[in-house]
């Protein structure tokens, strides 16, 4: 019998996500996928799932759900209280959950998005090669944000439920600091900015706007003034691009970004720090820090260490 999960309360916004769509941006289709790809991968790693297995991404207010059959889950990402059948349980750890009990993720204390992985991963039809929900375009995942009463089927796997409730070491989890620091490398339009403008961009702590979403993190602060504006001929963009909007304030693009954009991109957040950008919450303080390519590469190696160590190779789940 296949296992399924019933959604009791999806919170503010919960969606099914894998690591996103590839090779379809030329059709105008956003990659989408888990905003904090590192937390999603860690959750799957804890259960021995494939790294691209579909998980649930929650937003700020958590989620409540009940597995219909006994299964294993792992919750990572934002710092939020988790309870199973009313008893408090840890995050960043594999948890055995009995059939019919309620799992509750409460309000995030730090960060925005939690990731819930299930033994085997969530089974949804792939759209353009991915299980990810594109909320804006209205396809993928459950075809929309999860709603009360939705049932998610899990991928059936041959292997037994692991009985160890293994954890990701505390040293490999995000550490929350204020102001948050996003390390950046040059973007294609860095030459459009004068030295004093780059200084303004990197010298101040911005505040995260309430208008942030899965498409991008909008920042508020001291705006750049440029009579020529910061508009450019529309060109391709990717997650991490720091766009300068017409009002002189930056947006950091996240997973569900438009495929092309007409704003100048002076900087791009390094791949290793996109998970940190995805966990910024309205009111948080953040600044940009320029680094070298070697720094970016070392940061990626360091942050993905938990994905390589300690664990057995995952069995194929699909």
């Amino acid at each position, binding site marked *: 019998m296949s296992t399924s999960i019933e959604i009791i309360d999806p919170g503010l916004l919960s969606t099914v996500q894998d690591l996103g769509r*590839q090779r379809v*941006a030329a059709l105008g289709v956003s990659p989408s996928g888990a905003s904090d790809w590192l937390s999603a991968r860690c959750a799957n790693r804890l259960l021995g799932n494939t790294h691209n297995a579909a998980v649930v991404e929650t937003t700020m207010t958590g989620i409540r759900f009940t597995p219909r059959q006994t299964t294993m889950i792992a919750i990572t990402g934002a710092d939020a209280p988790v309870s199973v059948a009313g008893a408090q349980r840890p995050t960043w750890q594999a948890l055995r959950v009995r059939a019919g009990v309620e799992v509750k993720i409460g309000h995030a204390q730090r960060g925005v998005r939690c990731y819930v992985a299930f033994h085997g991963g969530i089974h949804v039809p792939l759209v353009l090669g991915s299980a990810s929900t594109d909320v804006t375009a*209205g396809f993928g995942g459950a075809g929309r944000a999860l709603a009360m009463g939705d049932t998610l089927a899990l991928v059936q796997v041959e292997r037994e439920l692991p009985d160890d409730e293994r954890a990701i070491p505390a040293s490999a989890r995000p550490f929350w600091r204020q102001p948050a620091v996003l390390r950046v490398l040059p973007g294609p339009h860095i030459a459009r900015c004068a030295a004093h403008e780059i200084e303004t961009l990197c010298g101040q702590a911005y505040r995260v706007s309430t208008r942030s979403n899965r498409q991008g993190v909008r920042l508020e602060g001291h705006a750049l003034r440029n009579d020529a504006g910061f508009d450019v001929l529309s060109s*391709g963009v990717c997650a991490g691009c720091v766009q300068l909007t017409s009002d002189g304030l930056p947006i950091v693009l996240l997973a569900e970004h*438009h495929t*092309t954009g007409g704003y100048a*991109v002076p900087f*791009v957040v390094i791949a290793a720090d996109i998970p940190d950008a995805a966990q910024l919450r309205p009111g948080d303080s953040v600044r940009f820090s320029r680094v070298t390519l070697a720094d970016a590469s070392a940061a990626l190696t360091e942050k993905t260490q938990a994905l390589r160590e300690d664990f057995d190779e995952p069995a194929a789940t699909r």
Partner: protein
Amino acid sequence: MSIAGDVLPVGDAAVLAVVGDAIDEGTAARVWALHAAALQAFGSAALDVVPAYASVLVRFDPAAAQLAIAMATMRGALEQATTGPPAIVRHIDIGVCFSNEYALDLEDVAQKTELAPLQVIEEFCRPIYRVAFLGFSAGFPYLLGLSDKLHLPRLPTPRVKVPAGSVAFAAGQCGIYPRNSPGGWRVLGKTGATIFDPAKAEPALLHPGDSVRFHAVDSLDQATAVVR
């Protein structure tokens, strides 16, 4: 023949080749050629190859490839790209209903361009458009060839919801909204044709390089697309 262009870094996970700064067919033809050459040069290392009016972006996995190598590969693609007449050009005829309920900005455009509404429609349906690229949202085609008489800036305040199928223009650009979405372009009419369907083997109705003509029809159910 190779293409002249700048190759620029986009952080540690993408590179951008810029081959011009104009919205015109000559520039677009260079982009189409570079797009094909980049697909060839990067192969499976490219997670996405994204053409636009005058540039091509290639996204890659920074854990598997280095920026310096990606930049060199992109320069190689510029060398290898061959421009010339495409082997096959698809022609697509698209019916558009310009009745009042769909022509949200027709009156206003007529006033601003000092043309009669019928003349605006005629002027809009006259050119043979070319699809430059798809971007912004799933399947949204950016069309080249808008009449000079219809050059108006974007709406001062974008609409929260532009209805799906809306045929619109602004700032020398022209396109069709595949689904309901916010937008700041001036809406002249609506087509009933499906512009994007992710369930289809060919999800997008239009592809870069396609030629497109609009014609006026009386009702939305006649406003279909025919690929010739």
